[in-house]
């Protein structure tokens, strides 16, 4: 075994350093337990608190990150988790990650999965053109330093992300020419009315709208196609009766969020309706594996924070503040449930796909190659769909929507990883390594 494998032991390993993971790790560390937090991105914050070093953060984000920084939690950014498994002949889990070009391993008694969510992409003709981004994707790129100043932007798709992203891009100089929500006005209104129970959320929504009052926001409208020579130049949107073409420099389009459940599935956790099932303490079906935040069901940052705190306390064996947190969690969970219902995807999105629209971008598999009568596994073997480096994370959501295909079983590596990293993960940590505490 090469010398450049970093080994560490901890009471708890937290995978994902978005709001949920940060809250969990903070509570664990403050309870006096050893905790290691891992995140793939160069900075902590996940998606919603994504930031460049030195850039401004929301007061909430700043408060939590400072609080975490004040603990003894070990934080590993740029760490992609490749494998996680029970250890033979011992309790706890061995987690293998790749950081830089080196493997690092964590032995932890307990895991908290805070792996967040990714966007659901439903293909349309032209979606592979340069300068077509997701919606959260555009936000992520903005926060990573992309300049949207002076660009004509169309934002389309579905879900509560459309408004905040439109607001954010506008504030940063983009000319947002249209925001198109595929859900009907009635569905969106029903969700909006539900927000009365959470005045803060309603105020937030109103503020977002105010940020770009001059921008048309239409419901019941979706993207039919995008076109352009070297990059996107125009997008055609339709409401099912009339279609119109809109010139743009950038198209942001995605259909809501899907929990990232890969690691939970690798560990054998029960998944229902695409989200990790957890009990009242945020524990999954696997002993000593907790799950928090968007991977238990998309519900926003406030819910993620509460869940993170609850799981952190449970993982640390603490009962401090638990009742209060449960009280705060309840209404937030209800809103999360309403959201899924309001923004359900309409059938027409299936008809937008043409025979030569690419469905799997890693392997360039077109829609016509896929027989709806197949299963996911059959399609993978016959066409290579889902067999590329993204491991089906992009096309999987599309295929579930288009053909009702459930995802195939998860195997290591959880992300593409060096063979040397996989080797490191296949070896057990020596007793000495296990004693090197966090």
């Amino acid at each position: 075994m090469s010398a450049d494998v970093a080994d560490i032991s901890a009471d708890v390993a937290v995978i994902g350093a978005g709001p949920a993971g940060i809250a969990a790790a903070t509570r664990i560390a403050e309870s006096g337990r050893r905790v290691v937090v891992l995140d793939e991105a160069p900075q902590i914050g996940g998606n919603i608190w994504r930031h460049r070093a030195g850039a401004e953060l929301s007061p909430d984000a700043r408060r939590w990150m400072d609080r975490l920084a004040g603990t003894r939690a070990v934080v590993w950014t740029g760490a992609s988790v490749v494998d996680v498994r029970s250890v033979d002949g011992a309790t706890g889990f061995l987690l293998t990650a790749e950081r830089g070009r080196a493997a690092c391993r964590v032995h932890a008694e307990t895991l908290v999965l805070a792996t967040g969510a990714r966007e659901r992409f439903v293909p349309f003709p032209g979606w592979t053109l340069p300068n077509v981004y997701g919606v959260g994707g555009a936000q992520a790129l903005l926060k990573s330093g992309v300049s949207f100043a002076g660009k004509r932007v169309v934002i389309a798709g579905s879900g509560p992300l459309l408004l905040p992203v439109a607001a954010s891009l506008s504030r940063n100089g983009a000319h947002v020419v249209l925001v198109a929500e595929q859900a009907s006005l009635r569905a969106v209104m029903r969700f909006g009315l539900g927000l009365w129970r959470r005045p803060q959320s309603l105020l937030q929504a109103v503020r977002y709208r105010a940020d770009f009052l001059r921008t048309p926001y239409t419901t019941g409208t979706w993207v039919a196609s995008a076109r352009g020579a070297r990059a996107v130049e125009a997008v055609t949107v339709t409401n099912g009766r009339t279609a119109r073409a809109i010139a743009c420099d950038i198209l942001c389009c995605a259909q809501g969020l899907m929990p990232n459940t890969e690691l939970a599935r690798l560990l054998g956790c029960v998944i229902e309706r695409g989200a990790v099932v957890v009990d009242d303490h945020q524990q999954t079906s696997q002993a000593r594996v907790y799950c928090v935040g968007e991977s238990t069901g998309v519900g926003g940052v406030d819910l993620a924070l509460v869940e993170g705190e609850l799981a952190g306390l449970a993982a640390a064996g603490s009962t401090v503040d638990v009742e209060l947190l449960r009280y705060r969690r309840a209404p937030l969970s209800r809103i999360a449930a309403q959201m899924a219902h309001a923004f359900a995807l309409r059938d027409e999105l299936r008809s937008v796909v043409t025979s030569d629209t690419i469905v799997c971008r890693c392997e360039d598999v077109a829609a016509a190659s896929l027989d709806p009568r197949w299963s996911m596994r059959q399609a993978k073997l016959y066409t290579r769909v889902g067999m590329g480096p993204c491991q089906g994370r992009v096309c999987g959501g599309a295929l579930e929507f288009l053909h009702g295909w459930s995802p195939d079983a998860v195997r290591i590596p959880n992300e593409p990883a060096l063979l040397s990293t996989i080797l490191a993960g296949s070896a057990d940590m020596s007793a000495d390594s296990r004693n090197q505490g966090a």
Partner: protein
Amino acid sequence: MTAPSRSDVIVIGAGIVGAACARALAREGLRVVVLDADFAGGGTTAAGMGHLVIMDDSPEQLALTALSMESWRELRSTLPVEVEYDACGTIWVAEDREQRDAVANKQAAYREHGIESEVLDAEGLYAIEPNLRSGLAGGLLVPGDAVIYPPRAALALLDDARRHGAILREGCRVDAIVDNGVRAGNEVLYADIVVNAAGAASAALTPELPIVPRKGHLAITDRYPDFCRHQLVELGYLTSAHVMTSDSVAFNVQPRATGQVLIGSSRELVGWDRSTNHVVLKQMLDRALQFMPSLSRLNIIRTWTGFRPATPDKLPLIGAWTPTRGLYVATGHEGLGITTSLGTARLLTDLVVGRMPSIDAAAYAPTRVLTSVSAGL
């Protein structure tokens, strides 16, 4: 499409062996129905490396693989592009002088079957495979060997079978073989001839078949075109494949048409446990690095496991299963199912129609295991 009430042949299993047999039998004018519990090419066929290779661990294996390779070469020009037939050849890698000297025997054995090969010294080896580690002694290049993509190959063979009137029924699990037929759920399907080509699960239908699942791990990389150009196998592979009783790994690396590198191989007897065994995976990858250290800096994007249908004497079972009327078997191909599917189909068809088989088929006779059983072995 519903099957006729009585066919000439029912083939159980639409993996590559079942597909090849269905094709050959349909081409003889027989009415063939192929049944698969899941989908065509989804079993062992989907898990393996798709290596078309001459194998000489025994004279009978050499004869069968040679016959099969002849058939693959004949078929090659008709195969759709999705089958990705790549005549990249195999290099049997010699670690030391002793192995290098021994390849002369291998070359001679191949030559007897009309198979070309070229002995490589170290310089010759590195000239064509620079990513192999230094200090190797050379090897044997077999340019006629190839690589294909097995699931699509099975589909291509089935398509040909269907063009000759065969019917494929997927999602149809056979529960039992009866005299001149099979029972599948509530249905009984009749045929003069039933072929058990159910691969690693063959013994579930014909319990006396000494077929056990022999598990293998594989790993595939991202795209690194030109990392290697030939299928590379260590000469020790023959020992690994040959020894039934213990777990083993062997160096076996393959370039795929996509530019990805496929890494094998391992063998274990652990029943039907599909899960990744980290100890075995590590042994397999360590062995691969022994020969190609620069593999360690390639990205692996996927790993998986599969079950080879293994027999005690390493040879497949091809021919009539006399205890049951009308039953033939075509199974037990271990790690050579892709290659020998075509040779198996030829022999099986010869036997079914009552022709003299293309090669002496006695060594593959399924009844050989009956003798062992009745002798109490």
